């Protein structure tokens, strides 16, 4: 694969893994969160509504009971007394005292005739002879059996309402028995209702006037619009959710009082009622977000690492693949070379023999005595010399390819190196080259064929000396231990190998030496020997600075092939 495409492929792989991991971890999280929130919100809504309903219902009962009780008190008074008694101030006073003692809320009692003239009065104020003929409550009371007025600020500036009962005397004339009721207690019932931060209750009449003080004055008018439109149930409780004028969603629980004349409202901002829900929702969202981000980050790094590993594995495999191909190539070239060498051997042998035969003849024949005789002999000698050269080449080729016949033995590389370096010193002296060794005395012995290892070392050292050339320089042989290998480095300060040639130096017949001076087989023979031993040979080179060959001999060697 091309490097660009490969990188793209790996990037895609990383993305896929990240997406997959994120999906796998996020989908259940989101669904669990969603389901939980849904059910939680449903049950919470239900409980909020139920709570409001209960409060409204309880208060409705209480207030209705309160009103009915007052009405019943008055009714009892009207039924048990005659008009004459009622028109008696002291009787009325006595009754008021009893009421106040027993129930407390009665502020005064009065008897009004059918013209609106208050005939008797018992109470704190001097209201005898007050005229109520124009009062709204009086007109309404005259039309019914009894009447309970809306709350109003009376003469005293205190909120109160009036209970009026129509009484008929013996002469058929109608009288009104009226009482002012202090609503302190009954409003406190409603005004004390407090739910959460915004939940409160109040009473309105049909026209939208407040009968109790609402907790939040600013909302005074806002209640009117939603409630006035709806049918207020006389007995049950209805729940309305609407946006108030403030724009906040509000829940209203509504119930009718006093046969639907008054409306008991209990309200709470939705936001307040569901604050725990919102809190839970926020928490879930927050946790989900954190999880999402961490899953993203973790999966990204995980995927990166995974894919990185894959990439290295792939590269290593590719490298190994190359090496296998290289080894195979060398092996097949070796076999081919061996075949050619063998086939060439016989014709060369014949040529050499024929030349020898001609020499034999020349020595004896007296016929050719011309000047050319020497020339003939020179030419034949040359043919023989070149034949010998061919022989050397073919023999080297064959030794490159032949199966090893050398016996394996334990050998100390250091000793062998000393020996080989000793052999090479003479050659080195001609080219002003110094050979030095740096031997690690602790390296373990290796199992190998001494002649083969010697061949490899000799080859490398001779190459190094050649690379240094006539100008002189340094050849260094070092040994060191490297895991299961003993590593021998042969480095020189010579001309170096151009990069283009580095890949080819182990190929058979590759040589940079002039024709006739090198066969180009030395390094490929080395490669063959080291490869068969299960070792490795590699090279580092910088043009102009020098070359280092690294040879790794396995400590526990086994022949690669049986």
């Amino acid at each position: 694969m091309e490097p660009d495409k490969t990188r793209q492929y790996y990037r895609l792989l990383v993305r896929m893994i990240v997406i997959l991991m994120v999906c796998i971890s996020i989908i259940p999280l989101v669904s669990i969160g969603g389901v939980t929130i849904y059910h939680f919100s449903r049950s919470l809504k239900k409980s909020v509504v139920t709570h409001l309903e209960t409060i409204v219902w309880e208060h409705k009962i209480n207030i209705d009971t309160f009103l009915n009780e007052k009405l019943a008190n008055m009714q009892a008074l009207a039924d048990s007394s005659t008009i004459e008694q009622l028109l008696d101030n002291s009787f009325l006073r006595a009754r008021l005292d009893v009421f106040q003692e027993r129930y407390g809320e009665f502020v005064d009692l009065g008897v009004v005739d059918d013209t609106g003239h208050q005939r008797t009065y018992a109470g704190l104020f001097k209201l005898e002879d007050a005229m109520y003929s124009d009062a709204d409550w009086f007109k309404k009371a005259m039309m019914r059996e009894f009447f309970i007025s809306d709350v109003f600020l009376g003469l005293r500036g205190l909120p109160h309402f009036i209970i009026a009962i129509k009484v008929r005397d013996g002469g058929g004339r109608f009288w009104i028995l009226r009482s002012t009721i202090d609503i302190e207690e009954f409003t406190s019932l409603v005004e004390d209702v407090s739910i959460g931060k915004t939940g409160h209750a109040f009473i309105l009449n049909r026209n939208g006037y407040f009968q109790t003080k609402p907790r939040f004055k600013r909302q005074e008018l806002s209640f009117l619009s939603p409630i006035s439109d709806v049918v207020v149930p006389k007995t049950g409780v209805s729940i309305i959710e609407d946006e108030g004028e403030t724009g906040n969603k509000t829940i209203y629980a509504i119930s009718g009082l006093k046969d639907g004349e008054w409306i008991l409202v209990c309200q709470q901002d939705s936001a307040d009622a569901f604050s725990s829900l919102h809190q839970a929702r926020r928490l879930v969202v927050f946790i989900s977000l954190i999880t999402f981000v961490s899953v993203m980050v973790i999966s990204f790094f995980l995927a990166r690492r995974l894919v990185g590993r894959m990439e290295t594995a792939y590269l290593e495999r590719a490298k190994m693949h190359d090496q296998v191909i290289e080894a195979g190539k060398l092996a097949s070239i070796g076999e081919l070379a061996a075949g050619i060498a063998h086939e060439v051997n016989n014709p060369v042998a014949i040529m050499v023999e024929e030349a020898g035969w001609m020499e034999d003849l020349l020595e004896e024949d007296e016929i050719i005595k011309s000047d050319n005789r020497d020339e003939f002999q020179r030419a034949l000698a040359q043919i023989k010399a070149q034949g010998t050269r061919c022989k050397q080449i073919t023999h080297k080729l064959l030794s490159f390819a032949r199966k090893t016949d050398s016996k394996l033995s334990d050998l100390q590389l250091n000793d062998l190196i000393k020996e080989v370096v000793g052999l090479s010193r003479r050659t080195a002296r001609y080219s002003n080259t110094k050979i030095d060794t740096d031997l690690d005395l602790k390296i373990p012995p290796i199992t190998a064929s001494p002649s083969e290892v010697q061949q490899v070392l000799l080859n490398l050292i001779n190459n190094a000396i050649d690379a240094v050339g006539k100008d002189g320089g340094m050849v260094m042989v070092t040994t060191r231990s490297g895991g299961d290998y003993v590593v021998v480095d042969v480095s020189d300060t010579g001309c170096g190998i151009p990069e283009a040639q580095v890949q080819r130096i182990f190929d058979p017949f590759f040589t940079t030496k002039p024709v006739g001076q090198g066969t180009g087989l030395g390094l490929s023979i080395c490669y063959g020997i080291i490869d068969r031993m299960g070792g490795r040979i590699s090279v580092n080179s910088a043009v102009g600075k020098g070359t280092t060959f690294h040879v790794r001999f396995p400590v526990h060697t086994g022949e690669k092939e049986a």
Partner: protein
Amino acid sequence: MITTHVMLVDDEEPFVETMTKRLTKKGLNVAGVFSGHEALDKLASNRMIDVVVLDVKMPGMDGLEALQEIKKRFPLVEVIMLTGHATVESAIEGMRLGAFDYLMKPCEMDQLLSKIGEAKDKKRLHEEKIRDAKIRELSSQFD
């Protein structure tokens, strides 16, 4: 000195021919054949042959088989193996089977001649020993 009788065995006819000429020139009695079978036939018909120069790699019956057959049927005849480099192992194997020595192709004439001489000497010594033993045996019968 008695003429040495040599037989050259190689499938390369030009090689055999030239070699024959050169060795004859050196004063040897040379017979050249081109296969193992021919060599055996020749040995059977010509009892004078002292040394066989045998190529290891031949089509049909190869050098080693021919060697074994020669040693079985004509144990006194000495054999020099001639080999290319790749068949050194077979040459060594040949020496284990009773060959006198081996030479690598292409070989130096002097080397070949000296090896043939050595082989001939060995054979002669061996034959003399056999003759002596026979004489001793015969004389012991008379005692």
